[in-house]
């Protein structure tokens, strides 16, 4: 699948943008603060309806304007037309001219994996980061996962609200607990199934990038050890004093082990960077394996942070993943773009909210 056309109106620092993209490798070159990352943000938004910078719609509207428009033509099995409009008072999302009624009808039209400096938090940050990583991957690959997760969150919020009351209606409490357990068990099952499939992909990617013998292993660390309902009941006394639900998939973690040692504590800075990229590569490979087509790869500022050895490990992986009519978008400054990539790429100059193709480079 590839993004064939991107249209932006009043999105970040783009007043208007219309760009055609072929499949293959696209390098977005430009000085700082010109709008390179903003392009990746728009593509990711099309894929997931969220900003990878973790901000809401208001921040993406061009300063002093009412709303943004992001439109795209995506070529995969067929050609799909996406149009998205956001303003403080109005939200529109349409696919091939029809308003989108259910998220699950939409997600999957464009799949993307983003690599950015923030990914380091997957290794260094709290468990919530790694849960979000698993959740995103499952939402991309499992049509029922997102509604399930929303349901779990709703049940959890209800149950926590009950725990905060001074006088809890026992029957009502049991009813919401039953919901939490039945949905929670389905989430646990899907995560438990995913991690062992992801682990070898991440291990392989790590090896190739690091080019050494360290063993990377991922392990699912569920909050629930054997029986959700029983463990929940056993935690009632503690729940009463904390006034919230203490057991369940909202407390899961994904353990990252390098040579059987937890990476967050024992890995070097360079190893952590490599590990974060390996996780994202694994995500891309997993999505490719499941759907037969590679997701669009969005790579933001990652190259500048890697040493030569790791760069030369990563680039072949990226080149491989844009074969089979895939697509890669990579941002770089003029100084640090990987010239070793050679001629098989399309270069673009990004400057002050405009995009210009550098025609000297032949399109792949």
């Amino acid at each position, binding site marked *: 699948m590839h993004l064939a056309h991107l249209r932006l109106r009043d999105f970040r620092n783009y007043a208007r943008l219309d760009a055609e993209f072929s499949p293959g490798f696209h390098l977005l070159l430009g000085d700082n603060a010109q709008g390179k990352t903003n392009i990746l943000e728009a593509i990711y938004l099309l894929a997931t309806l969220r900003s990878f910078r973790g901000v809401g719609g208001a921040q993406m509207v061009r300063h002093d304007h009412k709303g943004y428009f992001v439109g795209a033509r995506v070529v995969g099995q067929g050609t799909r037309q996406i149009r998205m409009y956001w303003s403080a008072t109005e939200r529109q999302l349409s696919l091939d001219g029809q308003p989108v009624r259910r998220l699950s009808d939409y997600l999957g039209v464009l799949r993307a994996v983003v690599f950015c400096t923030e990914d380091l938090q997957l290794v260094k940050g709290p468990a919530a980061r790694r849960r979000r990583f698993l959740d995103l991957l499952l939402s991309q690959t499992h049509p029922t996962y997102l509604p399930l997760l929303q*349901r779990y969150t709703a049940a959890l919020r*209800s149950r926590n609200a009950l725990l905060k009351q001074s006088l809890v209606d026992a029957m*009502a409490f049991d*009813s919401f607990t039953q*919901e939490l357990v039945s*949905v929670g068990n389905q989430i646990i099952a899907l995560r438990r199934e995913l991690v062992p499939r992801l682990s070898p992909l991440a291990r392989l990617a790590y090896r190739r990038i690091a080019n050494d013998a360290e063993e990377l292993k991922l392990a699912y660390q569920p909050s629930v050890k054997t029986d959700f309902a029983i463990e929940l009941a056993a935690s009632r006394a503690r729940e009463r004093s904390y006034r919230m639900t203490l057991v369940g998939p909202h407390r899961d973690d994904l353990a990252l082990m390098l040579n059987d040692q937890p990476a967050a504590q024992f890995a070097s800075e360079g190893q952590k960077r490599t590990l974060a990229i390996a996780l994202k590569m694994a995500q891309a490979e997993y999505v490719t394996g499941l759907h037969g087509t590679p997701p669009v790869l969005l790579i933001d500022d990652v190259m500048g942070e890697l040493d030569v050895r790791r760069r030369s490990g990563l680039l072949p992986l990226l080149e491989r993943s844009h074969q089979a009519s895939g697509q890669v978008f990579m941002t770089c400054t003029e100084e640090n773009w990987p010239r070793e990539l050679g001629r098989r790429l399309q270069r673009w100059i990004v400057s002050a909210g405009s995009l210009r193709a550098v025609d000297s480079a032949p399109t792949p």
Partner: protein
Amino acid sequence: MSALPEPLVDLMAALGRLPGIGPRTAERLALHIVQADPAEVDRLATALTTARLRVKACERCGALTEAQPCALCTDDRRDASLLCVVERPVDVLLLDKTGVFRGRFHVLGGKLSPINGVEPEDLRIRELELRLTAEPIREVVLALPTDVEGDATSSYLARRLAPRGVRVTRLAHGLPAGTGLEFADELTLSRALEGRRPLD
């Protein structure tokens, strides 16, 4: 400062408080009304106040009605041993339209919602229990929304009614998950009714 006459601004504000009407629609409707034939506006005003005065909740089932109790509650041809519990008055209309359900109805007037402070006492559950004592009801069919709060309300009712020995069933899950009845077409609704099953 607004250049619009004050009564027009008031009208726009009043219309804008109606569900599903945004500021733009409110403005369009208000502008239409102040320029329409006065007789027509009179008829609209009368229709509004009359409807509000004459339509009440049925004291027995909670559906909207002019007579007390409502026609559904007094219709002898309906099966008095079968009672369908719904969230809102409009759900009665939706289910009755399917023509498959021939029993009576009971409107809860909401669903359990700890986040919004809706507790069992806020719903018409006492009224439901009184009806179970007063009427020859043998089966209670729960036709509540399938979101978390709706499902929790269903299992709450199943727990609470269990000691009474009445059969409690719920609509089969042909319904789109996580939604209310209005998203289901009539065919889906009537299939869901036929496939109803007891709560575990």
